[in-house]
Protein backbone atom coordinates (compact mmCIF):
# COMPACT_ATOMS: atom_id res chain seq x y z
CA UNK A 1 0.00 0.00 0.00
CA UNK A 2 2.60 2.51 1.08
CA UNK A 3 4.46 2.22 -2.22
CA UNK A 4 1.31 3.16 -4.13
CA UNK A 5 0.13 5.82 -1.73
CA UNK A 6 1.95 8.83 -3.15
CA UNK A 7 1.20 8.01 -6.81
CA UNK A 8 -2.42 7.38 -5.84
CA UNK A 9 -2.69 10.72 -4.05
CA UNK A 10 -1.08 12.50 -6.99
CA UNK A 11 -3.58 10.86 -9.34
CA UNK A 12 -6.52 11.86 -7.12
CA UNK A 13 -5.19 15.38 -6.87
CA UNK A 14 -4.83 15.57 -10.64
CA UNK A 15 -8.41 14.35 -11.06
CA UNK A 16 -9.70 16.89 -8.55
CA UNK A 17 -7.72 19.62 -10.28
CA UNK A 18 -9.12 18.56 -13.65
CA UNK A 19 -12.71 18.75 -12.39
CA UNK A 20 -11.94 21.98 -10.58
CA UNK A 21 -11.03 23.68 -13.87
CA UNK A 22 -14.35 22.65 -15.41
CA UNK A 23 -16.79 23.26 -12.59
CA UNK A 24 -18.23 26.48 -11.27
CA UNK A 25 -21.02 28.90 -12.04
CA UNK A 26 -20.10 28.37 -15.67
CA UNK A 27 -19.57 24.69 -16.53
CA UNK A 28 -17.03 24.26 -19.26
CA UNK A 29 -16.42 21.29 -21.53
CA UNK A 30 -12.97 19.65 -21.59
CA UNK A 31 -12.53 20.90 -25.15
CA UNK A 32 -13.08 24.49 -24.05
CA UNK A 33 -10.72 24.10 -21.09
CA UNK A 34 -8.14 22.51 -23.31
CA UNK A 35 -8.24 25.26 -25.88
CA UNK A 36 -8.21 27.85 -23.09
CA UNK A 37 -5.07 26.32 -21.63
CA UNK A 38 -3.20 25.71 -24.85
CA UNK A 39 -4.50 28.39 -27.22
CA UNK A 40 -5.41 31.31 -24.98
CA UNK A 41 -7.70 34.05 -26.28
CA UNK A 42 -9.67 36.72 -24.51
CA UNK A 43 -12.96 34.91 -24.76
CA UNK A 44 -15.05 33.88 -21.80
CA UNK A 45 -13.78 30.31 -21.26
CA UNK A 46 -10.16 31.36 -21.58
CA UNK A 47 -10.55 34.17 -19.08
CA UNK A 48 -12.39 31.95 -16.65
CA UNK A 49 -9.86 29.12 -16.86
CA UNK A 50 -6.67 31.15 -17.01
CA UNK A 51 -7.48 34.10 -14.82
CA UNK A 52 -9.92 32.71 -12.29
CA UNK A 53 -9.82 28.97 -11.90
CA UNK A 54 -6.14 28.27 -12.50
CA UNK A 55 -4.81 30.71 -9.90
CA UNK A 56 -7.52 29.57 -7.54
CA UNK A 57 -6.55 25.94 -8.07
CA UNK A 58 -2.88 26.70 -7.50
CA UNK A 59 -3.75 28.52 -4.29
CA UNK A 60 -5.97 25.67 -3.11
CA UNK A 61 -3.22 23.14 -3.73
CA UNK A 62 -0.46 25.17 -2.11
CA UNK A 63 -2.59 26.19 0.88
CA UNK A 64 -3.75 22.62 1.42
CA UNK A 65 -0.16 21.39 1.07
CA UNK A 66 0.96 23.94 3.67
CA UNK A 67 -1.70 22.92 6.15
CA UNK A 68 -1.31 19.17 5.66
CA UNK A 69 2.47 19.21 5.78
CA UNK A 70 2.77 21.56 8.75
CA UNK A 71 0.24 19.44 10.63
CA UNK A 72 2.31 16.33 9.97
CA UNK A 73 5.55 18.05 11.01
CA UNK A 74 4.09 19.51 14.20
CA UNK A 75 2.60 16.16 15.13
CA UNK A 76 5.95 14.48 14.57
CA UNK A 77 7.85 17.17 16.43
CA UNK A 78 5.59 17.20 19.48
CA UNK A 79 4.84 13.47 19.16
CA UNK A 80 1.23 14.37 19.69
CA UNK A 81 -1.54 13.43 17.26
CA UNK A 82 -3.52 16.57 18.11
CA UNK A 83 -0.82 19.03 17.12
CA UNK A 84 -1.95 21.15 14.18
CA UNK A 85 -1.45 24.79 13.16
CA UNK A 86 -5.10 25.58 13.84
CA UNK A 87 -5.34 23.88 17.22
CA UNK A 88 -2.00 25.31 18.32
CA UNK A 89 -3.21 28.82 17.56
CA UNK A 90 -0.74 29.42 14.72
CA UNK A 91 -3.58 30.12 12.28
CA UNK A 92 -5.24 32.61 14.58
CA UNK A 93 -1.88 34.30 15.12
CA UNK A 94 -1.56 34.61 11.36
CA UNK A 95 -5.11 35.96 11.16
CA UNK A 96 -4.30 38.60 13.74
CA UNK A 97 -1.28 39.68 11.76
CA UNK A 98 -3.30 39.86 8.56
CA UNK A 99 -6.13 41.81 10.24
CA UNK A 100 -3.68 44.39 11.52
CA UNK A 101 -2.03 44.64 8.10
CA UNK A 102 -5.32 45.10 6.28
CA UNK A 103 -7.27 47.40 8.55
CA UNK A 104 -4.53 49.76 9.52
CA UNK A 105 -3.53 50.50 5.98
CA UNK A 106 -0.24 48.60 5.82
CA UNK A 107 -1.58 46.31 3.09
CA UNK A 108 -2.65 49.35 1.08
CA UNK A 109 0.80 50.87 1.42
CA UNK A 110 2.68 47.78 0.25
CA UNK A 111 1.03 44.55 -0.72
CA UNK A 112 3.63 42.29 0.91
CA UNK A 113 2.47 43.60 4.27
CA UNK A 114 -0.35 41.08 4.61
CA UNK A 115 1.74 37.91 4.24
CA UNK A 116 4.60 39.42 6.23
CA UNK A 117 2.37 40.43 9.12
CA UNK A 118 0.59 37.08 9.02
CA UNK A 119 3.91 35.27 8.98
CA UNK A 120 5.10 37.23 11.99
CA UNK A 121 1.89 36.50 13.86
CA UNK A 122 2.19 32.81 13.00
CA UNK A 123 5.82 32.72 14.08
CA UNK A 124 5.16 34.36 17.45
CA UNK A 125 2.15 32.26 18.33
CA UNK A 126 3.91 29.14 17.05
CA UNK A 127 6.89 29.89 19.26
CA UNK A 128 4.71 30.30 22.32
CA UNK A 129 2.79 27.14 21.45
CA UNK A 130 5.96 25.07 21.01
CA UNK A 131 7.38 26.35 24.28
CA UNK A 132 4.23 25.55 26.21
CA UNK A 133 3.21 22.37 24.47
CA UNK A 134 6.66 20.78 24.35
CA UNK A 135 6.11 18.72 27.45
CA UNK A 136 2.98 17.73 29.29
CA UNK A 137 1.16 15.78 26.64
CA UNK A 138 -2.22 16.17 25.07
CA UNK A 139 -3.91 18.18 27.78
CA UNK A 140 -1.30 20.91 27.89
CA UNK A 141 -1.29 21.02 24.10
CA UNK A 142 -5.04 21.58 23.90
CA UNK A 143 -4.96 24.11 26.71
CA UNK A 144 -2.11 25.95 25.04
CA UNK A 145 -4.08 26.12 21.81
CA UNK A 146 -7.19 27.35 23.60
CA UNK A 147 -5.22 29.99 25.48
CA UNK A 148 -3.45 31.27 22.37
CA UNK A 149 -6.69 31.17 20.41
CA UNK A 150 -8.52 33.20 23.06
CA UNK A 151 -5.80 35.80 23.30
CA UNK A 152 -5.52 36.24 19.56
CA UNK A 153 -9.27 36.46 19.03
CA UNK A 154 -9.45 39.05 21.81
CA UNK A 155 -6.72 40.97 20.01
CA UNK A 156 -8.58 40.61 16.71
CA UNK A 157 -11.64 42.09 18.40
CA UNK A 158 -9.52 44.91 19.79
CA UNK A 159 -8.07 45.55 16.34
CA UNK A 160 -11.61 45.61 14.93
CA UNK A 161 -12.74 48.10 17.57
CA UNK A 162 -9.86 50.34 16.63
CA UNK A 163 -10.25 49.76 12.91
CA UNK A 164 -11.43 52.78 10.96
CA UNK A 165 -13.80 50.68 8.82
CA UNK A 166 -17.31 50.04 10.17
CA UNK A 167 -17.76 46.94 8.01
CA UNK A 168 -14.61 45.33 9.39
CA UNK A 169 -16.44 42.99 11.76
CA UNK A 170 -18.56 41.50 9.02
CA UNK A 171 -15.65 41.17 6.64
CA UNK A 172 -13.48 39.53 9.25
CA UNK A 173 -16.23 37.13 10.18
CA UNK A 174 -16.55 35.87 6.63
CA UNK A 175 -12.81 35.98 6.11
CA UNK A 176 -12.15 33.87 9.18
CA UNK A 177 -14.31 31.21 7.59
CA UNK A 178 -11.77 30.94 4.81
CA UNK A 179 -12.38 31.53 1.14
CA UNK A 180 -10.66 31.49 -2.22
CA UNK A 181 -13.34 33.44 -4.06
CA UNK A 182 -11.93 35.95 -6.51
CA UNK A 183 -8.32 35.27 -5.62
CA UNK A 184 -6.11 35.91 -8.64
CA UNK A 185 -2.56 35.58 -9.91
CA UNK A 186 -1.75 38.59 -7.77
CA UNK A 187 -2.43 36.46 -4.71
CA UNK A 188 -0.46 33.56 -6.15
CA UNK A 189 2.50 35.88 -6.65
CA UNK A 190 2.12 37.09 -3.10
CA UNK A 191 1.78 33.68 -1.45
CA UNK A 192 4.10 31.29 -3.28
CA UNK A 193 7.38 33.07 -2.47
CA UNK A 194 6.58 32.33 1.17
CA UNK A 195 4.80 28.99 0.85
CA UNK A 196 7.42 27.23 -1.28
CA UNK A 197 10.42 27.88 1.00
CA UNK A 198 8.18 27.03 3.95
CA UNK A 199 7.28 23.68 2.44
CA UNK A 200 10.93 22.98 1.64
CA UNK A 201 11.96 23.69 5.24
CA UNK A 202 9.22 21.40 6.53
CA UNK A 203 10.13 18.56 4.17
CA UNK A 204 13.75 18.71 5.34
CA UNK A 205 12.73 17.67 8.86
CA UNK A 206 11.64 14.16 7.82
CA UNK A 207 14.66 12.14 8.94
CA UNK A 208 14.81 13.99 12.24
CA UNK A 209 11.13 13.40 12.92
CA UNK A 210 11.70 9.67 12.48
CA UNK A 211 14.44 9.77 15.10
CA UNK A 212 12.24 11.89 17.36
CA UNK A 213 9.85 8.95 17.59
CA UNK A 214 12.40 7.68 20.14
CA UNK A 215 12.15 10.87 22.19
CA UNK A 216 14.33 13.97 22.19
CA UNK A 217 17.24 12.44 24.11
CA UNK A 218 17.67 9.49 21.78
CA UNK A 219 17.21 11.77 18.78
CA UNK A 220 20.04 13.94 20.08
CA UNK A 221 22.17 10.84 20.57
CA UNK A 222 21.52 9.91 16.95
CA UNK A 223 23.07 13.17 15.84
CA UNK A 224 19.88 15.23 15.46
CA UNK A 225 20.01 18.82 16.66
CA UNK A 226 16.53 18.96 18.13
CA UNK A 227 16.64 22.73 18.66
CA UNK A 228 17.44 23.22 14.97
CA UNK A 229 14.60 20.93 13.96
CA UNK A 230 12.23 22.84 16.20
CA UNK A 231 13.30 26.11 14.59
CA UNK A 232 12.92 24.64 11.10
CA UNK A 233 9.44 23.32 11.88
CA UNK A 234 8.45 26.64 13.39
CA UNK A 235 9.81 28.75 10.52
CA UNK A 236 8.42 26.41 7.88
CA UNK A 237 5.00 26.49 9.51
CA UNK A 238 5.08 30.25 9.92
CA UNK A 239 6.09 30.81 6.29
CA UNK A 240 3.63 28.42 4.71
CA UNK A 241 0.65 28.71 7.06
CA UNK A 242 1.20 32.43 7.55
CA UNK A 243 1.08 33.11 3.81
CA UNK A 244 -1.80 30.68 3.32
CA UNK A 245 -3.85 32.38 6.02
CA UNK A 246 -3.04 35.82 4.67
CA UNK A 247 -4.52 34.82 1.32
CA UNK A 248 -7.42 32.53 2.17
CA UNK A 249 -8.31 33.26 5.78
CA UNK A 250 -8.40 30.39 8.21
CA UNK A 251 -9.10 26.96 6.82
CA UNK A 252 -9.38 24.70 9.83
CA UNK A 253 -8.69 21.06 10.57
CA UNK A 254 -6.88 20.21 7.34
CA UNK A 255 -3.62 19.98 9.27
CA UNK A 256 -5.30 17.58 11.66
CA UNK A 257 -7.05 15.36 9.16
CA UNK A 258 -4.49 15.01 6.39
CA UNK A 259 -1.71 13.37 8.47
CA UNK A 260 -4.12 11.05 10.25
CA UNK A 261 -5.67 9.78 7.08
CA UNK A 262 -2.33 8.70 5.66
CA UNK A 263 -0.42 7.75 8.83
CA UNK A 264 -1.57 4.11 9.14
CA UNK A 265 -0.81 3.65 5.45
CA UNK A 266 2.88 4.41 5.90
CA UNK A 267 3.44 2.39 9.07
CA UNK A 268 3.11 5.47 11.34
CA UNK A 269 6.65 6.61 10.59
CA UNK A 270 6.62 10.39 11.12
CA UNK A 271 9.05 11.13 8.31
CA UNK A 272 7.19 9.04 5.78
CA UNK A 273 3.91 10.74 6.72
CA UNK A 274 5.14 14.10 5.41
CA UNK A 275 4.82 13.77 1.66
CA UNK A 276 1.45 11.96 1.61
CA UNK A 277 0.10 14.34 4.29
CA UNK A 278 1.08 17.27 2.08
CA UNK A 279 -0.67 15.69 -0.92
CA UNK A 280 -3.73 14.77 1.16
CA UNK A 281 -3.96 18.34 2.48
CA UNK A 282 -3.81 19.69 -1.07
CA UNK A 283 -6.49 17.22 -2.10
CA UNK A 284 -8.79 18.13 0.81
CA UNK A 285 -8.60 21.87 0.15
CA UNK A 286 -8.99 21.43 -3.61
CA UNK A 287 -12.10 19.33 -3.05
CA UNK A 288 -13.41 21.78 -0.44
CA UNK A 289 -12.94 24.67 -2.87
CA UNK A 290 -14.69 22.67 -5.57
CA UNK A 291 -17.56 22.00 -3.19
CA UNK A 292 -17.91 25.65 -2.24
CA UNK A 293 -18.21 26.55 -5.90
CA UNK A 294 -20.74 23.91 -6.83
CA UNK A 295 -22.86 23.49 -3.70
CA UNK A 296 -25.08 26.47 -2.99
CA UNK A 297 -27.13 26.31 0.19
CA UNK A 298 -29.92 28.81 0.71
CA UNK A 299 -28.65 31.24 -1.89
CA UNK A 300 -25.23 31.87 -0.37
CA UNK A 301 -22.18 29.81 -1.31
CA UNK A 302 -20.41 27.97 1.50
CA UNK A 303 -16.99 29.04 2.69
CA UNK A 304 -14.08 26.62 2.50
CA UNK A 305 -13.37 26.90 6.19
CA UNK A 306 -16.99 26.10 7.01
CA UNK A 307 -16.75 23.05 4.83
CA UNK A 308 -13.48 21.75 6.33
CA UNK A 309 -14.72 22.47 9.85
CA UNK A 310 -17.94 20.57 9.17
CA UNK A 311 -15.90 17.46 8.40
CA UNK A 312 -13.04 18.31 10.73
CA UNK A 313 -14.82 18.89 14.02
CA UNK A 314 -16.43 15.44 14.26
CA UNK A 315 -13.08 14.01 13.23
CA UNK A 316 -11.38 15.95 16.00
CA UNK A 317 -13.88 14.74 18.60
CA UNK A 318 -13.44 11.17 17.45
CA UNK A 319 -9.68 11.56 17.71
CA UNK A 320 -9.89 12.94 21.25
CA UNK A 321 -12.06 10.00 22.32
CA UNK A 322 -9.78 7.55 20.55
CA UNK A 323 -6.69 8.93 22.24
CA UNK A 324 -8.40 8.92 25.62
CA UNK A 325 -9.40 5.32 25.17
CA UNK A 326 -5.88 4.36 24.26
CA UNK A 327 -4.15 6.21 27.06
CA UNK A 328 -6.76 5.45 29.73
Amino acid at each position, binding site marked *: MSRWLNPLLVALLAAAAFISLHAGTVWLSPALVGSALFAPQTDLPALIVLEIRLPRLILAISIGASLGLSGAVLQGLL*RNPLAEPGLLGVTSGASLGAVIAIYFGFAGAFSLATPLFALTGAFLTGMIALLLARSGGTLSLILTGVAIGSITSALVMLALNLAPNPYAAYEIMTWLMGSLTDRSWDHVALALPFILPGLALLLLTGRALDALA*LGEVQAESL*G*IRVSHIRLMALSGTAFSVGAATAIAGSVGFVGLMAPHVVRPLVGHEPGRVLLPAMLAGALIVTLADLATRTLVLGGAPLNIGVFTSLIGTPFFLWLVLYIRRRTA
Partner: protein
Amino acid sequence: MSALTLDRVDVARGGRTILDAISLSFAAGRLTAVIGPNGAGKSTMLDVAAGLRTPDSGSVWLGEEDFAAIGRRALARRRAYLPQRAAVEWPISVERVVALGLTPTLPAFGPLPEEMLPAIDDALIACDLVALRDRAATSLSGGELARAMLARAIVGDPELLIVDEPTAGLDPRHALDAMRRLRDRAQSGRTVVVAIHDLDLALNHADDIVAICDGRLIAAGPRDAVVDEAMLGALYDVRVRLSRDAEGFSVRFMGDAA
Protein backbone atom coordinates in the same frame (compact mmCIF):
# COMPACT_ATOMS: atom_id res chain seq x y z
CA MET B 1 38.64 -0.43 19.77
CA SER B 2 39.06 2.56 21.97
CA ALA B 3 38.60 3.48 25.57
CA LEU B 4 36.55 6.41 26.75
CA THR B 5 38.35 8.86 28.97
CA LEU B 6 37.00 11.69 31.10
CA ASP B 7 39.62 14.25 32.00
CA ARG B 8 38.92 16.59 34.97
CA VAL B 9 35.26 16.98 34.05
CA ASP B 10 33.24 19.59 35.94
CA VAL B 11 29.51 20.12 35.49
CA ALA B 12 27.45 22.66 37.41
CA ARG B 13 23.79 23.44 37.10
CA GLY B 14 22.21 26.49 38.66
CA GLY B 15 25.26 27.11 40.87
CA ARG B 16 25.20 23.53 42.18
CA THR B 17 28.09 21.24 41.39
CA ILE B 18 26.87 18.05 39.73
CA LEU B 19 30.21 16.58 38.73
CA ASP B 20 33.40 17.64 40.47
CA ALA B 21 36.71 17.06 38.69
CA ILE B 22 35.93 13.59 37.46
CA SER B 23 38.83 11.85 35.76
CA LEU B 24 38.55 8.23 34.77
CA SER B 25 38.75 5.82 31.89
CA PHE B 26 36.28 3.24 30.64
CA ALA B 27 38.21 0.39 29.09
CA ALA B 28 37.34 -1.17 25.77
CA GLY B 29 36.16 -4.76 25.84
CA ARG B 30 34.82 -4.39 29.35
CA LEU B 31 31.42 -3.76 30.89
CA THR B 32 31.64 -0.91 33.38
CA ALA B 33 28.87 -0.36 35.92
CA VAL B 34 28.44 3.13 37.34
CA ILE B 35 26.92 2.93 40.80
CA GLY B 36 25.99 5.45 43.45
CA PRO B 37 23.00 6.74 45.40
CA ASN B 38 20.19 8.79 43.88
CA GLY B 39 21.34 12.22 42.83
CA ALA B 40 24.99 11.19 42.81
CA GLY B 41 25.43 12.45 39.26
CA LYS B 42 25.34 9.10 37.45
CA SER B 43 22.99 10.22 34.69
CA THR B 44 24.87 13.48 34.20
CA MET B 45 28.12 11.58 33.95
CA LEU B 46 26.60 9.30 31.34
CA ASP B 47 25.32 12.32 29.41
CA VAL B 48 28.83 13.77 29.41
CA ALA B 49 30.32 10.42 28.48
CA ALA B 50 27.86 10.18 25.60
CA GLY B 51 28.74 13.65 24.37
CA LEU B 52 25.17 14.85 24.90
CA ARG B 53 26.30 17.37 27.45
CA THR B 54 29.40 19.50 27.16
CA PRO B 55 31.21 19.73 30.51
CA ASP B 56 31.80 23.18 31.95
CA SER B 57 35.46 22.34 32.06
CA GLY B 58 37.57 19.31 31.28
CA SER B 59 37.44 17.10 28.23
CA VAL B 60 36.21 13.74 27.03
CA TRP B 61 38.25 11.50 24.75
CA LEU B 62 37.26 8.54 22.64
CA GLY B 63 40.55 6.75 22.07
CA GLU B 64 42.94 9.48 20.96
CA GLU B 65 40.24 11.88 19.77
CA ASP B 66 38.68 14.72 21.70
CA PHE B 67 34.85 14.67 21.55
CA ALA B 68 34.95 18.32 20.60
CA ALA B 69 36.81 17.39 17.40
CA ILE B 70 34.74 14.39 16.38
CA GLY B 71 31.59 16.10 15.20
CA ARG B 72 28.01 15.35 15.94
CA ARG B 73 27.16 12.86 13.21
CA ALA B 74 30.49 11.05 13.38
CA LEU B 75 30.10 10.64 17.11
CA ALA B 76 26.53 9.43 16.64
CA ARG B 77 27.87 6.69 14.36
CA ARG B 78 30.52 5.57 16.86
CA ARG B 79 28.52 5.81 20.06
CA ALA B 80 25.06 4.60 21.00
CA TYR B 81 23.13 5.85 23.99
CA LEU B 82 19.98 4.54 25.62
CA PRO B 83 18.31 6.74 28.22
CA GLN B 84 16.24 5.47 31.14
CA ARG B 85 12.90 3.99 30.12
CA ALA B 86 13.62 4.43 26.43
CA ALA B 87 10.35 4.17 24.52
CA VAL B 88 8.79 4.66 21.10
CA GLU B 89 5.98 7.17 20.70
CA TRP B 90 4.33 6.00 17.51
CA PRO B 91 3.20 2.46 16.69
CA ILE B 92 6.15 1.90 14.35
CA SER B 93 7.18 -1.67 13.50
CA VAL B 94 10.09 -3.17 15.46
CA GLU B 95 12.12 -3.52 12.28
CA ARG B 96 11.76 0.21 11.55
CA VAL B 97 12.61 1.13 15.14
CA VAL B 98 15.82 -0.86 14.86
CA ALA B 99 16.54 0.89 11.57
CA LEU B 100 16.37 4.24 13.37
CA GLY B 101 19.70 3.31 14.92
CA LEU B 102 21.20 3.87 11.47
CA THR B 103 19.96 7.47 11.31
CA PRO B 104 23.46 9.03 11.39
CA THR B 105 24.50 7.02 8.33
CA LEU B 106 21.34 7.57 6.28
CA PRO B 107 21.09 10.03 3.40
CA ALA B 108 18.86 13.07 4.06
CA PHE B 109 16.05 11.71 1.89
CA GLY B 110 14.71 8.53 0.49
CA PRO B 111 14.10 4.97 1.65
CA LEU B 112 16.48 2.76 3.55
CA PRO B 113 19.46 1.84 1.31
CA GLU B 114 19.53 -1.88 0.40
CA GLU B 115 23.02 -2.40 1.76
CA MET B 116 21.87 -1.55 5.27
CA LEU B 117 19.28 -4.31 5.44
CA PRO B 118 21.72 -7.09 6.55
CA ALA B 119 22.80 -5.01 9.57
CA ILE B 120 19.18 -4.73 10.63
CA ASP B 121 18.66 -8.46 10.23
CA ASP B 122 21.77 -9.14 12.30
CA ALA B 123 20.59 -6.86 15.09
CA LEU B 124 17.15 -8.47 15.08
CA ILE B 125 18.73 -11.92 15.29
CA ALA B 126 21.15 -10.89 18.01
CA CYS B 127 18.30 -9.61 20.16
CA ASP B 128 15.85 -12.47 19.40
CA LEU B 129 13.44 -10.12 17.68
CA VAL B 130 12.97 -11.87 14.34
CA ALA B 131 9.48 -13.08 15.23
CA LEU B 132 8.51 -9.60 16.38
CA ARG B 133 9.93 -7.64 13.46
CA ASP B 134 6.54 -6.50 12.13
CA ARG B 135 4.93 -5.86 15.51
CA ALA B 136 4.17 -2.26 16.52
CA ALA B 137 6.78 -1.16 19.05
CA THR B 138 4.09 0.37 21.26
CA SER B 139 2.50 -3.06 21.73
CA LEU B 140 5.65 -4.78 23.07
CA SER B 141 6.06 -6.00 26.64
CA GLY B 142 8.75 -4.42 28.81
CA GLY B 143 11.30 -7.11 28.12
CA GLU B 144 10.60 -7.10 24.39
CA LEU B 145 10.86 -3.33 24.23
CA ALA B 146 14.19 -3.42 26.09
CA ARG B 147 15.49 -5.90 23.51
CA ALA B 148 14.19 -3.75 20.67
CA MET B 149 15.90 -0.69 22.06
CA LEU B 150 19.14 -2.59 22.52
CA ALA B 151 18.89 -3.81 18.94
CA ARG B 152 18.39 -0.24 17.74
CA ALA B 153 21.46 0.80 19.81
CA ILE B 154 23.77 -1.88 18.40
CA VAL B 155 22.54 -2.00 14.82
CA GLY B 156 25.23 0.43 13.67
CA ASP B 157 27.87 -1.57 15.59
CA PRO B 158 29.08 1.39 17.69
CA GLU B 159 32.38 1.06 19.49
CA LEU B 160 30.91 2.77 22.55
CA LEU B 161 27.59 1.81 24.14
CA ILE B 162 26.19 3.79 27.04
CA VAL B 163 23.00 2.67 28.77
CA ASP B 164 21.25 4.39 31.65
CA GLU B 165 19.45 1.86 33.88
CA PRO B 166 19.10 -1.01 31.39
CA THR B 167 17.17 -3.13 33.91
CA ALA B 168 14.76 -0.57 35.35
CA GLY B 169 11.22 -1.95 35.21
CA LEU B 170 12.28 -5.43 34.10
CA ASP B 171 11.51 -8.64 35.97
CA PRO B 172 14.53 -10.72 37.12
CA ARG B 173 14.60 -12.96 34.08
CA HIS B 174 14.54 -10.07 31.61
CA ALA B 175 16.96 -8.04 33.74
CA LEU B 176 19.45 -10.91 33.69
CA ASP B 177 18.90 -11.29 29.97
CA ALA B 178 19.57 -7.60 29.39
CA MET B 179 22.82 -7.72 31.40
CA ARG B 180 23.92 -10.84 29.58
CA ARG B 181 23.44 -9.15 26.20
CA LEU B 182 25.42 -6.08 27.33
CA ARG B 183 28.17 -8.36 28.53
CA ASP B 184 28.26 -10.11 25.17
CA ARG B 185 28.67 -6.73 23.61
CA ALA B 186 31.64 -5.91 25.84
CA GLN B 187 33.18 -9.28 25.14
CA SER B 188 33.14 -8.56 21.44
CA GLY B 189 35.52 -5.70 22.17
CA ARG B 190 33.23 -2.70 22.58
CA THR B 191 33.27 -0.23 25.42
CA VAL B 192 30.08 -0.65 27.42
CA VAL B 193 29.04 1.69 30.21
CA VAL B 194 25.86 1.25 32.24
CA ALA B 195 24.47 3.16 35.19
CA ILE B 196 22.64 0.76 37.45
CA HIS B 197 20.93 0.72 40.82
CA ASP B 198 20.67 -3.03 41.25
CA LEU B 199 23.96 -3.87 42.99
CA ASP B 200 23.51 -7.64 42.63
CA LEU B 201 23.28 -7.29 38.89
CA ALA B 202 26.10 -4.75 38.80
CA LEU B 203 28.51 -6.81 40.84
CA ASN B 204 27.73 -10.06 39.09
CA HIS B 205 27.92 -8.83 35.52
CA ALA B 206 30.30 -5.87 35.39
CA ASP B 207 34.01 -6.14 34.82
CA ASP B 208 34.72 -2.71 36.24
CA ILE B 209 32.93 -0.65 38.84
CA VAL B 210 32.80 3.14 39.04
CA ALA B 211 31.30 4.54 42.24
CA ILE B 212 30.33 8.17 42.52
CA CYS B 213 28.65 10.15 45.25
CA ASP B 214 27.76 13.86 45.34
CA GLY B 215 29.49 14.35 42.02
CA ARG B 216 32.82 13.02 43.22
CA LEU B 217 34.56 9.84 42.23
CA ILE B 218 34.65 7.41 45.19
CA ALA B 219 36.22 4.43 43.51
CA ALA B 220 36.97 3.13 40.04
CA GLY B 221 38.61 -0.05 38.86
CA PRO B 222 38.17 -3.79 38.38
CA ARG B 223 35.29 -5.15 40.42
CA ASP B 224 37.32 -7.38 42.69
CA ALA B 225 39.82 -4.65 43.49
CA VAL B 226 37.27 -1.97 44.21
CA VAL B 227 34.22 -3.50 45.84
CA ASP B 228 34.16 -4.18 49.53
CA GLU B 229 31.73 -3.62 52.41
CA ALA B 230 33.46 -0.44 53.57
CA MET B 231 33.29 1.20 50.14
CA LEU B 232 29.64 0.29 49.60
CA GLY B 233 28.75 1.37 53.12
CA ALA B 234 30.38 4.74 52.64
CA LEU B 235 28.79 5.11 49.20
CA TYR B 236 25.21 4.50 50.28
CA ASP B 237 25.52 5.58 53.89
CA VAL B 238 24.04 2.29 55.13
CA ARG B 239 25.54 -0.83 56.65
CA VAL B 240 26.23 -3.40 53.99
CA ARG B 241 26.86 -7.14 54.18
CA LEU B 242 28.64 -8.43 51.08
CA SER B 243 28.87 -12.18 50.60
CA ARG B 244 30.36 -14.16 47.80
CA ASP B 245 29.90 -17.81 46.88
CA ALA B 246 30.12 -19.99 43.79
CA GLU B 247 26.98 -18.30 42.39
CA GLY B 248 28.52 -14.85 42.68
CA PHE B 249 28.03 -11.77 44.84
CA SER B 250 25.08 -10.97 47.00
CA VAL B 251 24.53 -7.69 48.79
CA ARG B 252 22.38 -7.12 51.86
CA PHE B 253 21.66 -3.73 53.31
CA MET B 254 21.42 -3.74 57.08
CA GLY B 255 19.83 -0.38 57.89
CA ASP B 256 21.27 3.04 58.71
CA ALA B 257 24.96 3.38 59.32
CA ALA B 258 25.56 3.71 63.01
